[in-house]
């Protein structure tokens, strides 16, 4: 964001949260509808935001219409608090929402906007998780016409999506969808849970937190309300699996930085050019590291 550009603070210019109150009200109505019909893609009038579509404008509009001055916000991009998308969105919200506290601590946040990850730290009933969505409809890979897709969703006709899984098993002996894994919500609608890895999909199931999905370009909002069933599509004899991170010796890889063995790992290269695996959730990694060093010093 341009540091020389000052947003107009005149009260007739920009409202708290950038969007005007009518726009927020419209988004909130869509959110309520989305919560009432779990997994249903509720259309809404996605506004132009001062950033390109595809940079999280859907999630941003949800956040801006939910946020109040007493809120504590955390913004994550691929698990990290300090990558470009997260930093830009956080700065924009700080600029347009005076009084809002931002944090990197998952426990301290009341509202979390995230791209491509659900935090490792278990979320609570008092928090809301907003996920940015590029492609809201899981059926788009099998049916190009939105009109027909709506009918398929309405009738719960997901046979063509299941056929895709069948074809995967025939060709590769396993289901090869790595992210955006189609997940059935409350035994009816199947959603695209945004590009979270398979590792995060079980966290949707009966989660105590309200999870909202916002697609800016595609103008859709959908929700997994608290304690709702979320079951990834699979076959009885070929069940859904998460990433195992097992190395060639059959051992679960630990994080190279904090040593945690239960988290989702990113593959990266260390200074010597060798492959290394590290927690994708930076806050979780810091916390693990902190508790380990504290345990060692005492």
């Amino acid at each position, binding site marked *: 964001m341009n540091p020389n550009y000052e947003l107009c603070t005149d009260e007739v210019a920009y409202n708290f949260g950038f969007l005007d109150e009518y726009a927020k009200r419209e988004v909130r109505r869509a959110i309520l509808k989305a919560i009432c019909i779990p997994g249903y893609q509720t259309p809404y009038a996605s506004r132009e935001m001062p950033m390109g579509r595809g940079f999280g404008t859907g999630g941003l509009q949800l956040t801006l219409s939910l946020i109040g001055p007493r809120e504590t916000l955390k913004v994550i991009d691929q698990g990290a608090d300090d990558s470009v998308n997260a930093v830009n969105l956080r700065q924009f919200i700080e600029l347009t929402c005076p009084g809002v506290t931002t944090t990197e601590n998952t426990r301290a946040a009341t509202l979390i906007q995230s791209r491509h990850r659900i935090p490792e730290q278990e979320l609570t009933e008092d928090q809301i998780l907003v996920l940015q969505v590029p492609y809201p409809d899981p059926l788009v890979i099998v049916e190009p016409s939105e009109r027909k897709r709506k*009918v398929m969703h*309405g*009738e*719960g*006709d997901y*046979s*063509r999506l*299941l*056929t*895709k899984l*069948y*074809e995967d*098993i*025939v*060709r590769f002996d396993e289901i090869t969808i790595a992210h955006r894994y189609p997940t059935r919500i409350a035994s009816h609608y199947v959603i695209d849970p945004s590009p979270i890895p398979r590792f995060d999909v079980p966290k949707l199931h009966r989660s105590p937190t309200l999870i909202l999905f916002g697609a800016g370009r595609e103008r859709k909002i959908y929700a997994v309300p608290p304690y709702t069933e979320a079951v990834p599509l699979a*076959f*009885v*004899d*070929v069940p859904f699996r998460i990433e195992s991170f097992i190395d060639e010796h059959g051992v679960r890889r630990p994080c190279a930085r904090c040593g945690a063995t239960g988290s989702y790992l990113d593959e990266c290269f260390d200074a010597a050019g060798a492959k290394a695996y590290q927690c994708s959730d930076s806050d979780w990694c810091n916390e693990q590291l902190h508790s380990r060093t504290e345990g060692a010093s005492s």
Partner: protein
Amino acid sequence: MKKILEVTGLSKIYGNGCPLCIEATGPERDTNLCPHCGSVVAAHDVDLELGEGEILGIMGESGSGKSTLVKLLYFDETPTGGRAVFFEDGQEHDLFALNAARQRRMRNQRFGMVYQNPHLGLNFNISAGGNIAERLLMTDMDHYGDIRGRARELLARTEVMLERMDESPRKFSGGMQQRVQIAKALATHPPLLFLDEVTTGLDLSVQACILDLILEIQQELRTAMIVVTHDLGVIRLLAGRTIVMKYGRIIETGLTDQILEDPQHAYTQRLVASSL
């Protein structure tokens, strides 16, 4: 014989239609295009009955409304008027009064369709086995091994080489594509099958094999079938009873032998004479 399907007064008009449409079209007027409003009367006042395990032939020239008729019954098109009742296990299902989801269930689980053009019946972007799996997945099957086993069984029954089960039907010959389509249509053991010009465009030896297969299936599974064709040979071989259509109307109906040996309507006489 127990009835499985009863159709009464089925009509389909493409276009807005006007009160003069019916009067101005039909075999007597020698057209199905209404001169007043330009609508096409593809089918009008079609009545037919089909018994369990029976094969009914529908014969007629191109544009006579025979394909429209099966498309209406398979819910590919919505009718302008009329009623169709499907009988099963003592229950009557008024087909056009069912809601969309139940129509889809009916279409996916109780009916089967084999189109002339395999592009309409098969998805060429997935494997032959996948095409059958898709139909099985429309029911509540959720066991991969069972689905695969059933697909293999069906393809073996329709004499498709099992080694090629995981290839796209795009790479298959026309006759093989038709066999895959038949396997797909049979996947859910439907009591009623629609065959729309299944052998048109295939060479004679392949035609004979496909017709043999259809007859075997009919005898094995007692599947009722409606066979649409303009090929008198197919009608003679398969159908017990035949309907002759022209310009959207039924002009003659009766036992196949009777129609082929002693046609009553001038058009049927011409049709039979031209093939001999």
